[in-house]
Structure formats: structure tokens, C-alpha cells
């Protein structure tokens, strides 16, 4: 049977069947099989049929053909069935669980052109930054016929304030363009008029202005001009915040940004009435700064005058409340105007007070002495011998005037800004402890002030690979170390504040809708003991009284220290190029403000010493600050204070008087930085 089957099958001359051959063979074997039976019956006709086959092969053995087609059907519909299951899963199960994706608002760098921003006001509610709407006029010249150019230009000229011919030429030159900006910032009233006229014309079926588009765009406006411009930063042409507060608080200020962080919130009415004149903005956001517009104005004016007077290249003044760390004023020169940043020099955009490092010079001696006093290595009256030069590992340190003074106690050495004795003091302290204090005073790390663009400075401590003993010597009087002005003033503010290093901040409160979050002053470290701070205070007052007399303000006790740092260049230190700085606070017994004045490269023809450049500037500003801040002279103030009749010095007064300002307990820094 099988043999016959095999002989028969090739003769059928078609291809269907072999695939299922194994299935069919048993049947064949059993009773001759259906196929062979059928074929046998048809045997008489086979020859003609074979011929027919050769001509026209029939499609298939019907059974296997149906089988194969059915199999193809399964192959084709199987995936369709799986897709149906997938669709059921997605459109029934998935649909029930589906939540529309949240719009991601955090961490974005670009802001939509139309996003409005919150306002920024100073501590008294004076407007520093706000959005103002201006109109932008654009056109589609492609759709405007040439004959209309003249009429359109004539109409636009009165609104834009440009000659009609110029506008017409603009059209002519761009006649095939889709988009043409005719004017970017048209006054609100002019824009409104033009818009109304366009609508009127369209209503009257007059299509002259059909392809002129007038749209309002928010534009950041800084009513105070250059005042505090580097603190504020600015929004660029794409309304992307650049530097400063605008950058740091971009997620808060933008209307689609985040709200207040979790924490203690007050009702808006808790704020001063004046402050609420402009706050919050239309969309409910606003920042109230610790900056005082008047103080800012004073320091900017005096800084400009001082730079002019001493022909310096640049300068920085920071005024800070030592008890809280609040920045009252922060000014740099040269600066720019946020309203016309396009015209400004990009180098002036950076806020030098936080993002430029310099060698502090003698001011840094305060840190060395504070460390020495805090560990009781020396006393204010400890006497050292100045031989005019001291050699450390082959590196010779001389005094700035290249003279030898002989025997001096620590207080007088500070007053005379004696390098040699400072090196000896640092050696008494020891490198490990000295650098420990340096880092505890906040050098070499961000102060975490809420401004964008802060740098950390550079401190090479004993762990640094190329550190040598001579580095301790040079660092002790502020050379070979890079700090930022904000770090320096914070360190001195810590001395003024009983040894408590405060985190500097510039936003007094954030207003979002009806809620207000007031920034809480944050203590970073108790850097030195309060007693050490008082002894430092006395010593710094002594410095002003005997060394930096030009810092004095009549009637007030001032504490401070000047510093003249030689500027490191590629050729080493250049004699005549210095950074002159003075840091001081007043009144010495109850500091109301601490101030840093820094002048870059004062004209050596006048003086290259801080004592004759930065120090007088400090004095002038301090004088005006006493008036503005209503600080009574010492004699008035001390006599008013019945409890302090018996004090003979500031140290004694502090011991009797209750704690002047209750400083809140230190909070985690992270909470505040989580804006």
C-alpha cells in the first residue's frame, strides 16, 4: 500500500500534502486511504487528467489545502487576538489606573515667554523688580501688498515713534518674510490704542492692519535702575533668569513655579503695611528683601565716590546685620542696569561680593588671633618680639613697611598690622588648629546665601598635597588664601555676634497668596567662645583707636581691621597693585551693622594702603548709616542704659546687660536652602 502510495503521489503533480504526510500515512496503511481510493476510482481517466494537471496544476489536495489555509488563518488572526488582549489591558485596566501626568515644574531652566514673575520689594516695601507689560508689534510682510506699505508705515510711525520711511524700508527689505518684528517694546498706552484701532478697522471691513500683529508681552522692570542690580539679577530676552535673586528664586517667582516650602507660615497680614503695597504680585508671588533701599543707595553712592576718589578699578561694599546674618546692602562697582542689560558689559553681571575670590590680606589676622585667643595660646597682652623678618622653611616674611618694631603685645601688633608677630602667633596655634578655625569661620565653603553664583574660595589646609609649613605663615596674615567678600564679612560678623557664625540671607520673607514665610536667622556654628569674641571686640576697637584711626566716626565706638593684599599675578606679587579692604562694625559694644569695604587697585599715586583708601570710605558710610538707622551716639546710648552705669569697658557691659538679641536656636541649614 505504501509503495503504491509513493508511486502515485509524485504523479499528482502538485505540491500540497507532504507537510501532513505523517498524519495521513496510518490511514493509508489501514485501509488503502482515501486519496488512493479516490485515485483508484479515477484510474481510467488518469492519463488525460495527468495531462490536464501538467497544463494546469490544480490548487491543492482539498483537505491539506484547507488545512494549510486554516493554519495561515490562525497565524494571521492569532496576533490580532493578542492585540485585542493588549487593548483590553490598556483601555480597561490601564484606563482605570490612568492619571494624567503631572506637569513638571521644578528644575526647569527655561521659562515660557509669557510666564509672569513675582515682584521683589525691599524691607520697606519699595519696589525693586516687577513685571510690566509692553506691546510687541510684528507683521507678516508676505501677505501685505506692496502698495499698502506706505499707509501702514504712516500709521505705525506715530505709535512706534520712528520715521515712516524707515518702517516702509523695513517692509521693503523683508517683503517675502513670514515674520517681522517691527517694534519690541511699545508703551502700554500706545499699544492699547493701536490694538483698538486695528479691531475697529477689522470691524469696519478695513483690512489694512490685518497682518500687523500687536501682542502684549511681560517685560521685567527694575524701577530703581542700577540699584542692587547685581543682587537682583535680571531676566534676559527669553525671560530666562540670569544670576542673582531672579535666578535663585526662579522656581518660586515664576507663575507656574512652586509655592512656599513646608514650614511655619504666617498670614500675610503679619507683614508691615508698607511692605504690602506691591506684594504680592498679580499671580500672588513676591519676595521681601532684607535690603534697605536707602542703605543700598548710600553704599552705592559712597562706593562710587570712593572709587572715583582713589581711582580704583572696582569695589565692593556689603552691610550686614551681625546678629541675624541679614544683608542690609550689597553693592559692587562697576555695575549695570537690569532694564537695559543688553547694553551692559557681561563682566558686570556677576555679583563680585559672592562670586569673586581675593586674598584678604591683614584682615585675615583677625582669624589667626581669634583662634589663638580661643585656645588661650596667647593673651591680648602677650608680648612678642618683632625682628623685622621671620624665616619659615626658607620663606622670609617681612612686615609691610619692611621695618622692625621690637617688642609688641598682641593688641598693638594687630593695631600696627605686624606680619612677623602674626606668624609667630600662628605658630603658637599650630597648623591643625589654625586650619580647623579657618574652616569653622566658613572659609573654603559656600556660605549658602540665597543668591545665585556663589563660589567657595580656596583654602589649602594641611591635608592639601602641596601644603608646606610656610603656607601657615603666609596664610596667617591673609596671603596665599582665597576668600570671597561674603565669607570674610560673615567671619567678622561672627566675632561681632559673640562667636556665632550666622548664615547670611537676603530674602526677609516669601509671600505666596495669603501666606508668608519669614526667613529665620540660622546659626551655623559657635565658632569661638563668647568671651573670646568680647576680647576680640576690645582688640578691634583698640585697632581702630590706635591703628586705623581714619575708620573712626566721632561719637561712636567702631571696631575693625584693615587689610592690604598684594594681588597675585602670573609674575608673582606686584608691588603697586593691591586690594584694599576694611571690615568693621559699630557700635563696638552693641554691633548694629558690620560692613566690608573693598577697593581693587587703588591708584598707588594716592595710596595703595587700605588704611588710607578703604578705611575712610568705611568711615563715611558708617557715619551716614548711624544717621539713617537712628543709632544714638555712645554717650547718649550708654547714659540711657541705667544698667550699664558701672561698666568701664565693653567687656564688663556685656556681662551685666541681658542678652541683647535672643538668637533663635540653630536650625538645619538644609531647610532654608530648600526654597
Amino acid at each position: 500500500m505504501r509503495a503504491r502510495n509513493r508511486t502515485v503521489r509524485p504523479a499528482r503533480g502538485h505540491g500540497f500534502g507532504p507537510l501532513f504526510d505523517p498524519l495521513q500515512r496510518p490511514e493509508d496503511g489501514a485501509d488503502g486511504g482515501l486519496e488512493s481510493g479516490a485515485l483508484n476510482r479515477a484510474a481510467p481517466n488518469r492519463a488525460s487528467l495527468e495531462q490536464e494537471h501538467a497544463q494546469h496544476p490544480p490548487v491543492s489536495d482539498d483537505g491539506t489545502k484547507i488545512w494549510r489555509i486554516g493554519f495561515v488563518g490562525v497565524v494571521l488572526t492569532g496576533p490580532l487576538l493578542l492585540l485585542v488582549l493588549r487593548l483590553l489591558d490598556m483601555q480597561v485596566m490601564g484606563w482605570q489606573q490612568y492619571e494624567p501626568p503631572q506637569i513638571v515644574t521644578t528644575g526647569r531652566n527655561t521659562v515660557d515667554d509669557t510666564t509672569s514673575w513675582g515682584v521683589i520689594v525691599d524691607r520697606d516695601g519699595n519696589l525693586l523688580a516687577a513685571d510690566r507689560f509692553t506691546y510687541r508689534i510684528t507683521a507678516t510682510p508676505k501677505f501685505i501688498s506692496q502698495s499698502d506699505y506706505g499707509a501702514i508705515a504712516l500709521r505705525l510711525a506715530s505709535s512706534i515713534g520712528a520715521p515712516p520711511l524707515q518702517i516702509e524700508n523695513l517692509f521693503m527689505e523683508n517683503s517675502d518674510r513670514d515674520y517681522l518684528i517691527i517694534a519690541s517694546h511699545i508703551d502700554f498706552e500706545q499699544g492699547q490704542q493701536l490694538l483698538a484701532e486695528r479691531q475697529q478697522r477689522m470691524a469696519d471691513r478695513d483690512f489694512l492692519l490685518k497682518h500687523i500683529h500687536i501682542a502684549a508681552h511681560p517685560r521685567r522692570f527694575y524701577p530703581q535702575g542700577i540699584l542692587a542690580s547685581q543682587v537682583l539679577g535680571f531676566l534676559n530676552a527669553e525671560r530666562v533668569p540670569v544670576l542673582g535673586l531672579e535666578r535663585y528664586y526662579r522656581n518660586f517667582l515664576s507663575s507656574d513655579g512652586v509655592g512656599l516650602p513646608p514650614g511655619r507660615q504666617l498670614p500675610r497680614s503679619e507683614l508691615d503695611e508698607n511692605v504690602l503695597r506691591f506684594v504680592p504680585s498679580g499671580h500672588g508671588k513676591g519676595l521681601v528683601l532684607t535690603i534697605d533701599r536707602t542703605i543700598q543707595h548710600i553704599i552705592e553712592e559712597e562706593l562710587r565716590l570712593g572709587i572715583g576718589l582713589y581711582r580704583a578699578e572696582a569695589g565692593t561694599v556689603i552691610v550686614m546685620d551681625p546678629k541675624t546674618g541679614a544683608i542690609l546692602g550689597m553693592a559692587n562697582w562697576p555695575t549695570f542696569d537690569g532694564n537695559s542689560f543688553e547694553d551692559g558689559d557681561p563682566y558686570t553681571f556677576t555679583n563680585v561680593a559672592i562670586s569673586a575670590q581675593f586674598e584678604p590680606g591683614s584682615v585675615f589676622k583677625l582669624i589667626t588671633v581669634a583662634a589663638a585667643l580661643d585656645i588661650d595660646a596667647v593673651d591680648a597682652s602677650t608680648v612678642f618680639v618683632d625682628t623685622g623678618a621671620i624665616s619659615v622653611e626658607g620663606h622670609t616674611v617681612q612686615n609691610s613697611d619692611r621695618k622692625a618694631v621690637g617688642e609688641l603685645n598682641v593688641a598693638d601688633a594687630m593695631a600696627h598690622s605686624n606680619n612677623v608677630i602674626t606668624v609667630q602667633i600662628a605658630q603658637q596655634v599650630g597648623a591643625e588648629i589654625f586650619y580647623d578655625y579657618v574652616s569653622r569661620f566658613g572659609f573654603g565653603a559656600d556660605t549658602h546665601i540665597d543668591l545665585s553664583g556663589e563660589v567657595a574660595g580656596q583654602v589649602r589646609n594641611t591635608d592639601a598635597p602641596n601644603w608646606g609649613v610656610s603656607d601657615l605663615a603666609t596664610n596667617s596674615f591673609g596671603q596665599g588664601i582665597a576668600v570671597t567678600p561674603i565669607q570674610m564679612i560673615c567671619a567678622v560678623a561672627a566675632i561681632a555676634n559673640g562667636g556665632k557664625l550666622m548664615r547670611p540671607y537676603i530674602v526677609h520673607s516669601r509671600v505666596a497668596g495669603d501666606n508668608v514665610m519669614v526667613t529665620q536667622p540660622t546659626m551655623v556654628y559657635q565658632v569661638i567662645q563668647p568671651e573670646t569674641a568680647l576680647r576680640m571686640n576690645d582688640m578691634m576697637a583698640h585697632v581702630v583707636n590706635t591703628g586705623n584711626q581714619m575708620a573712626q566716626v566721632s561719637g561712636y565706638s567702631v571696631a575693625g581691621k584693615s587689610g592690604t593684599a598684594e594681588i597675585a599675578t602670573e609674575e608673582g606679587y606686584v608691588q603697586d597693585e593691591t586690594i584694599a579692604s576694611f571690615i568693621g562694625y559699630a557700635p563696638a559694644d552693641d554691633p548694629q551693622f558690620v560692613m566690608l569695604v573693598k577697593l581693587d587697585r587703588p591708584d598707588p599715586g594716592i595710596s595703595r594702603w587700605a588704611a588710607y583708601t578703604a578705611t575712610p570710605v568705611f568711615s563715611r558710610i558708617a557715619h551716614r548709616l548711624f544717621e539713617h538707622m537712628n543709632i544714638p551716639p555712645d554717650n547718649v546710648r550708654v547714659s540711657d542704659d541705667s544698667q550699664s552705669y558701672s561698666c568701664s569697658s565693653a567687656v564688663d557691659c556685656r556681662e551685666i546687660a541681658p542678652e541683647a538679641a535672643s538668637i533663635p536656636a540653630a536650625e538645619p541649614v538644609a531647610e532654608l536652602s530648600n526654597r
Partner: protein
Amino acid sequence: MTMALQVSQVKQIGRFGPNIDWALATVLTCLILFGSVMVFSASYPWALENQVSPFYYVLLQLRWLGVGLVALVGAAIVPYRIWERWSIPLMALGLISLIALIFLGENRFGATRAFPGGRVQPSELVKVIVLIYISTWLASKGDRIKDINYGLIPFGVLMGIVTSLIVVQPDISTTILIVVTALIIFFLAGAELKQLILGGFVATVTFWLVITRNSYASRRVSALLESIQSPLNSSEWQIREASQAIVKGGPLGVGLGNSTEKLPGNLPLSWSDNIFAVIGEEMGLLGTLAVILLFTLFVYRGLRIASESTDIFGSLLAVGITSLIILQAIIHIAVAVAVAPPTGVTLPFVSFGGSSLVTSMGAAGILLNISRYRGLPPPAAPRRGEAGARPHITAGDRIRGGLANAFGAKKSGASSAPPGQTAHAPSNFGWWNRGSHISGSRRRRTTKNQRSDRRARSG
């Protein structure tokens, strides 16, 4: 359902004769009309965005629909055997156009798939030409394809040439379509199982190599593997947007015209490559299942036409066309539901796209033409240059037609063949009428397979 579809068979409408598959024509009409509506719905936001009339794309689509209708009617009138006769010149034309594309083509969306102007994509047409050629070739080989030298090796070489020309575009999805369709035809033509497995294995390995060597493809495939589990969080933008559209639709959809994913900037090419996602969002599960149902009916009718065709070429071609269109639909839907990597495959009859629509409709026309001859003798292939069906029936046709008609008449019960032809009914090959002409004792011994065959035939 089956009844409703079969009712139309007995109608005699117009010159298409008694047998033309009106059920298939109905399915096609539904798909095309539904497609036009969806193309309009999906494309008008983009048209508005580009400052043209909202009807821009749908009017373009309707224009192509006109061309496609001409192609469909033409292909339905011309006896399909003409394609067998013309297969070699057509194949030459297809190969030339593919080669020309390499040199003249215009690079769009990272691939060279269309001639300058972006209007004509030759690979759409080549798909059908390859089908015709393979069907002709396999039909002519007859039993010999079991021989590896006549079957697999020339088949492999042929497929290699065609696919490599398409892969270089690169258009991997079209290549997959052609190869899978060809394998299905090869299977149906009676290929040995081991040859098929070997061929499939070679094809799989080749594709694996091509995909891993091609950074464009491998990136998409790897993105897919990551995102099958949670397509909504996929890193691939297109997968994310498409699956979002599908999921948003839910059971009943957001309503016709209300899709948000089709808006400019979300789902790209929502009116062609991703139209199923828009259907899913606007019509929901109801709409997507309706589309799948229509395509399932298409498979059913297409394979039924193939099984009823008395001609091996017609059978192979019908299965090929059905497979090609359904595979395309499967890939398109699979992309939308994020189980296949994003490819540029359109949903046949539904998506916007001139080449695709005209080719699909032309192919469907061929299918309809094959359906005209079911149970009838296949039309003799006219000689080249001799267009149209011959009005007279030759003697050979009569014999064959009689044989086939005896079979067809039994099944449909509505034979329209002239009496003269039925005279040949008793002379048969044996396997045509095995089901009914065997004696009662034989019938009892039929296997389960054969019973199910009968059920399938009569159902």
C-alpha cells in the same frame, strides 16, 4: 454573521457577476470610509497649525481615494491571470525602481524611501509585485518546490535580492512584511516543513544581524523592550504618546474629534503612522475592536476566496494579498499598543498616504477579481499586451471549469454555470469531491481532520 456575508454571494450585480465577494467589498468600504473620517479628525489640528485649510489632508486623501478606486475597479475587472503573465516585467520594473531609489531617492525622516517630491514610495508597490512574482514562480514549480534546489535555494536568493534592496533604504518593517508574506505563500505552496523552518531560521538570524548592526533600528528595538511593561513611562517619545492616547481613550473613547494627543507637538504623524492611536483615544475600545473586527472579517473573506479558488496561482495570490494587508495592520496596531517598535507602517485603507492607499486598494481589487472565479475555471492568462478577459470560453476552460464547478456548485448551492459544463462533473480528480462521493462505509471511517475540514467548508 457568516450568513449575512454569504447572502451576497447569490446576488448577481452588474458585470462583476455572481461570485464577486460583496462581503469583502462591504468590509473594505467600511474601512475606507471610517479611515477618511479618522484622517480628517487626526489631521485637522496639524493642518490648522500649518496655516492650510483644515480639510487639506482629507481632501488629499479623497483624491488618492479616487485613484485607488480606479485601481480597485480596474484590478477587479482585469482577470487576475494577467498578473501571472506579466509578473516578470513587473518584477523587473520593481527592482529597477528600487535600485533607482538608491541613487535618486530623497532622504526624509532619516530614510530614503520616496522619490523626490515625497509622493511615490516604490516599496509600497514592490510589496505587491513581489507577491505576484512569488505566486507565479511557486505556482509554476508545482511539486518540484519540495526539492531544495528548486524550492528553497532559488526562493532564498530571490528574497535576498529584493529584501536587501529594501533594507538599504532602510525600511526594515517593509522587509519583514515581504519576507513573512513570502514565507506564508511558500508554506501554502507546499514547502517541506524542514525547508520552511530552515528558511525562517535564516530570515530570523539575518534580521537579528541587520537590526543589531543598524543603530537606528537597534535603538528603537531596545527602547521597546524597556517600555513594553510600562509604555506610559517609556523613554521613547513616540511610544509614550501613542500609548497615552490609547489609555486615555478607555472603553468608550473621548469622542470623535476630541483627541488631545493628535495636537501638534504630541503624537507625530497622527494621521498616517499613528492613526490607530488616535482611533483608540477618540473611539475607545469600541473603535479599536471594531477596526480589528473589520480586519478579521477581511482575513476570513480573503482566505475563503483563496480556498475557493480553483487555481493555484489565484490561491497563492489571494493568501499573499490577505497576509500582506493583515500583517501590515498587525504591525501598525502593535506599534500603537507598544508591543512593536515604532515603524512607519500605515494602517491599510485607514491611514493617510497615497502610495499605501492606492496599492492596498489595487491589491484588494485583485482579491475581488479572484473571488469572481471561485468555483469557476480560472481565466486563461491573456498574452502580454492582450488586455481584458476573453469573452469566450475555450474547451480546456470548459473541462476545468466543469470540474471546478461541480465542486463549487455543491458548496454554494447556487451554480450559475451553463448546463453544458456540468456534463463534465463526474470526471474528477478524486480529491475534489471526496467529501460527498464516498460511500457510507467510508464516510464513517473518515478522520476527525476530514470532518473538521467539512465543517470548515460548509461553515
